[in-house]
């Protein structure tokens, strides 16, 4: 379905992504993990064609999309929705308008300028918002919403595109644990209910483990791990993050229960020591 063939991106002399190759046969939820600067964002931006690759190819359903130009490139972007860490909504426009931006690829510039969207699209936008649980916010300005709500508006914009692939670039990095859980669960449900492919950059291991069917680990621009969450042992994780033996998964966690477990373990250790 989707295949990357030794995709490479260079910024000057620095190589951000080096010969990244992987193949996806059927829609699944993929998590890409790695340190900041490992090339995760660059990889997603190349997939969406926000930035061009230096070398290599991207093939989706038999079509080479690496060198698409003009309107065919924009059409690909409309089929391959993107969600950003900082939401990237238009802050001064209302929520429904922001969701309707997902249809821009089918609209002419002139009708966009006069804000003329078909009634059916407006209805669908509000239905998508309802599906994500934020329909009551429909007439509000995007900037008036909380971070978690804004990220769900961004997901609604992505769904409005009716995409084959949803790319999520650190979708929960700016959110608190509770909102992070809601957003990740929404992405998971979209994958399960609509059978869309979701590729998410994540910076915490347990999120990838919990929500993804397949995990890809990147380090210094190279793919160093590609497998199921079960295969992702602590040693492999240390290798991906370039950490030493003191690295523990709980240290990178944003999950409330993981933190609780960790605190409980520490408490028990302290108790045991006190008893000794």
């Amino acid at each position, binding site marked *: 379905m989707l295949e990357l063939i030794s995709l490479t991106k260079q910024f000057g002399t620095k190589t951000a992504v080096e010969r990244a190759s992987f193949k996806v046969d059927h829609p699944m939820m993929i998590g890409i993990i790695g340190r900041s600067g490992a090339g995760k964002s660059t990889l997603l931006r190349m997939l969406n064609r926000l930035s061009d690759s230096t070398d290599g190819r991207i093939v989706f359903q038999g079509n080479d999309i690496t060198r698409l130009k003009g309107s065919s490139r924009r059409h690909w972007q409309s089929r391959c929705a993107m969600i950003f860490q900082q939401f990237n909504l238009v802050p001064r426009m209302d929520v429904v308008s922001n969701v309707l931006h997902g249809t821009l690829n089918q609209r002419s510039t002139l009708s966009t300028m006069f804000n003329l969207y078909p009634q059916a699209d*407006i209805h669908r936008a*509000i239905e998508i918002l309802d599906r994500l*649980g934020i*329909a009551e916010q429909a007439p509000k300005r995007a900037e008036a919403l909380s971070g978690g709500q804004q990220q769900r508006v961004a997901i609604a914009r992505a769904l409005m595109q009716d995409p084959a692939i949803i790319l999520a670039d650190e979708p929960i990095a700016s959110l608190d644990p509770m909102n992070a*859980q809601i957003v990740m669960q929404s992405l998971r449900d979209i994958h399960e209910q609509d059978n869309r492919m979701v590729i998410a950059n994540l910076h915490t291991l347990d999120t990838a483990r919990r929500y993804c069917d397949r995990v890809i680990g990147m380090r210094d621009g190279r793919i160093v791990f590609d497998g199921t969450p079960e295969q992702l042992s602590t040693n492999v994780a240390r290798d991906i993050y370039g950490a030493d033996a003191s690295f523990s998964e709980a240290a990178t966690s944003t999950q409330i229960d993981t933190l609780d477990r960790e605190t409980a373990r520490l408490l028990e250790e302290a108790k045991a020591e006190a008893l000794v």
Partner: protein
Amino acid sequence: MSDATLSGHNSGPASVDAIQSSYLQQVQRKRLYGGLTLMIFALLMVAGFMTADARNAGGFWEGLHNVGDYPADVLSEAWEKRAALPALIVKYFPALVETINIAAVATILGAGLGLILSLLSTRGLARWPRLIPVFRRTMDIMRAIPEIVIALVLIFVLGGGPVPAMIAIAIHTAGALGKMFSEVAENADLKPLEGLASTGATWAQGMWLGILPQVAPNYVSYALLRFEINIRASAILGFVGAGGLGYELRNAMAWGPGRFDDAAAIFLLLFGTIIFFDQLSGRFRNQLTTGGQA
């Protein structure tokens, strides 16, 4: 976990319908207002054009086909005498230098005055906060009076020559740059200023060391833009007797056919100069705002 699932949030079909219909109403209201605004705008445009056309001595439609006649005359005559052009360009080069000189001196004087005025009229920086409105209105007046009016008055008083033109452009520049400078200074960080004030620095010392380093790239960039505008202004002021290229151009054009080759040479000089300084300052400004900052 269950609270985070999609279905857990569904507010039911009835309320979704309500949200949809109320949002659609809002959209329709907005469209109505938008349409009305557009209609009023179009009506005003048409009415304004018709008024202007009716008052025009010649009439817009009758004169439209004559628009190209004068340039065509100039170009055809200049083409016939093209062999003389290089010599004419050399002949008028001193006048060009005079024009650029007027613009340069006026820009430097105007920017200096504008700098002082801008700092005096920026909230948070002003030496005498109560006098801010006074300095602001002063700049407004300096901006409001066209250069050509100031120049005409000064030429009447001082006699023709480059000095009245220079003063006229400097006054306008001070008003225009003062406004832009003050907007930049409003966004400056006040913390360094507070730090300097805590050491017992004077107002001028605080401005010089605390504010100017922050705003300098923007100020220089605006001043360069103004220099380009002033070259044009200084050429135009030549028409009213301020010397330089404009004066020669007026003579060449007033003589009519027979000296159109002179006019063409002067136009070429003017275009060349403006393009040259436009490119130069554009490159310099880019460097200041992107690359040059440490």
